[in-house]
Structures are given as structure tokens and as C-alpha cells.
């Protein structure tokens, strides 16, 4: 039977959470509670919505034009069994996996380690507000580490740059995701992930 993953938000197509165009999942629930975290709405374990991993995989089968998925949160490794099933399913389909976790690898249990080992790229470590740096690519603070785990990618894809993504929905509503400096957030407004 398929595991259930609690998800707070998802984007079908995004270009700033890893190489290429990726489907992005913000898992719901995180107890790490990093000070200054931008995604506090994904802390509560009761929020978001539950979806079976098999259902997610089936939807990914029908999603065209993506190179892989990115898991962030929330904390994906606090739902490690479901995350592992999703990661394995993606790998089986030839999709690459980019994993964000606030945990340091030294804190991993066996399942978390498997999630990490099967991913292609992972960013690890707590967000530290004092080390916040919006010029970094794919991470929010300077202490966070980028790991190139498989042979699919190497450091050549990691050109440091500030990336923000704005989605203008058919309704005219703006969604902004990424590593925006506060000036940009204030100027653009809208909901922020």
C-alpha cells in the first residue's frame, strides 16, 4: 500500500529549485523551527493536504516537460517513508530528485539516509538567519551544504546567483517563490512561499 505524504504547496513547473524545470513539493510539517524561517506556514503537521504517493507519481506521469522533482518544506525527512517512496518512484521514471532538508547528514536515521542516497542533489542543514545570503543559489544561508550525490549533476550547475520566481496565475494573482531579498518581496507583495 502506498504511503501518504502531507503536502503544503506544490508547483507543477519551476526553474529555481534545482537544475532544469522541476515539479516542486513543499511538504507540510516541520519541528526544526529554524529562526527566521520563511515557510512557517508549513510547520504545523496538521496543515496542507494528504495525498498518496502513488497518486503523486501518477500525476507526474502526466506532467510534461519536467526534468525532475524537488522536495522541500516543511521538512521532507520528517515524512521519510513517504518521501523515500516518492524518491524511488521518481528515479524509476527517470526523473532526477533534488532534496532539501534542514537536517545535517549526521542526524539521519536509516530511512532518511536512503532518501539522501537516492537523491541526485541535496541541500542539508538548518537555515541560520544570521548567515542568510540571498546571492546563494538553491539555499538560504551560508552554512547550508549542497551535495552532488549521483553522477547526474556536478558543481558546474551551481553558479551562485539570486533567483526568484514569479507566477502570474490566470486570475491575475501573483505567487512569488525563491530567495527574494526583502526589497523585492515588499515591492511585489502577494503570497510568498
Amino acid at each position: 500500500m502506498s504511503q501518504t505524504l502531507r503536502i503544503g504547496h506544490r508547483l507543477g513547473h519551476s526553474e529555481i529549485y534545482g537544475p532544469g524545470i522541476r515539479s516542486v513539493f513543499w511538504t507540510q510539517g516541520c519541528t526544526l523551527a529554524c529562526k527566521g524561517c520563511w515557510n512557517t506556514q508549513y510547520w504545523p503537521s496538521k496543515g496542507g493536504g494528504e495525498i498518496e504517493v502513488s497518486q503523486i507519481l501518477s500525476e507526474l506521469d502526466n506532467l510534461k516537460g519536467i526534468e525532475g522533482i524537488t522536495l522541500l518544506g516543511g521538512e521532507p525527512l520528517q515524512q521519510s517513508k513517504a518521501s523515500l517512496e516518492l524518491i524511488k518512484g521518481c528515479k524509476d521514471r527517470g526523473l532526477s530528485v533534488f532534496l532539501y532538508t534542514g537536517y545535517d547528514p549526521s542526524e539521519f536515521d536509516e530511512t532518511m539516509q536512503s532518501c539522501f542516497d537516492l537523491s541526485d542533489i541535496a541541500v542539508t542543514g538548518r537555515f541560520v538567519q544570521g548567515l542568510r545570503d540571498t546571492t546563494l543559489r538553491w539555499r538560504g544561508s551560508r552554512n547550508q551544504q549542497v551535495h552532488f550525490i549521483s553522477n547526474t549533476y556536478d558543481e558546474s550547475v551551481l553558479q551562485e546567483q539570486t533567483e526568484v520566481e514569479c507566477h502570474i496565475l490566470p486570475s491575475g494573482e501573483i505567487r512569488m517563490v525563491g530567495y527574494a531579498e526583502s526589497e523585492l518581496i515588499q515591492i511585489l507583495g502577494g503570497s510568498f512561499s
Partner: protein
Amino acid sequence: MSGVWTEKSVPMTDHECAVEALEEVGATILAKNQNQIRIRINGQEWAVQKSHSRYSIRYNQRTQANLLSWMNNLGSAYETAVQRKLRRLRTEEESAQLESEREAVRAEREAFEAQRQGLIEQRRQEILEKANTLGYRVKETKQNGQIRMVLVRTS
């Protein structure tokens, strides 16, 4: 040779209904215009003329009077055709009314769509201008009705 030619009129005034009624009683229409309908029925040819807004037929009372039995049912056939036409006109009026309502909905929808597109374009311009001001490069993609704008700054 002289003859007595009689004019027998039929209370038909509407050309379209007259044609339908004549066909209903078994006539074949040979030719028709607004003033005359030429028909063949029971092997005889007749000209049904329109004068003073009514249709009538002229016949030789001596030789043709017994050949006009088909006219007995013409009045009721005409009435049926008139009722049918009235029903059709009512439906057409209703359709016209519906079409007018549909047109209003369409116009409203188009106005809403124009407003929506305007808002999207306005938002897009705002983002572009503000991103440029802050030194971002902007890459834009349209997908499934959404605009995705990736803002990148390398400095």
C-alpha cells in the same frame, strides 16, 4: 366555342402556406412566384392566381367543375399550414430572444476576459519594471495560462 369560366377563390393569403397547403392536398408544384402557383393534380394542370391578396382558380364550369374535388380540403390544409407557420415564427422569436441574451452574456464574458488580460499584463509590467530596477534578468515562460517569470541576478 364559348364557355363559362368561373373563378373559385380559396381563402389563402400567405404564399408560403398556400404552397404547403397545395402540396398537402396532393398537388405537384410546377412553378411558383408571388402572383401565381402552377400545379398539377389528378392529371390536370392548374394556375392558382393571386389577386386582391387572395388566391383563386379559374375553370370552365362545364368541363372542369367535376375535377375540383381536391379543393374541398384546401381550406383546412391551409389553416394547418398557417398554424404551423405561426408556431415556427414563435420559436424563431424565442430563439431571437435567446440569441440576444446569449449575445449579452458573450459581451459580458468578453469584457471580463479583457479586464483579466489587462490585469495580467499590468502585473507583468510591474514585475518587469521592478525587477529591472533591482538589476534582475527576467526569463518569461507561458504555460497552461500561467506566466512564469524567473528573475536572476548574478552580481
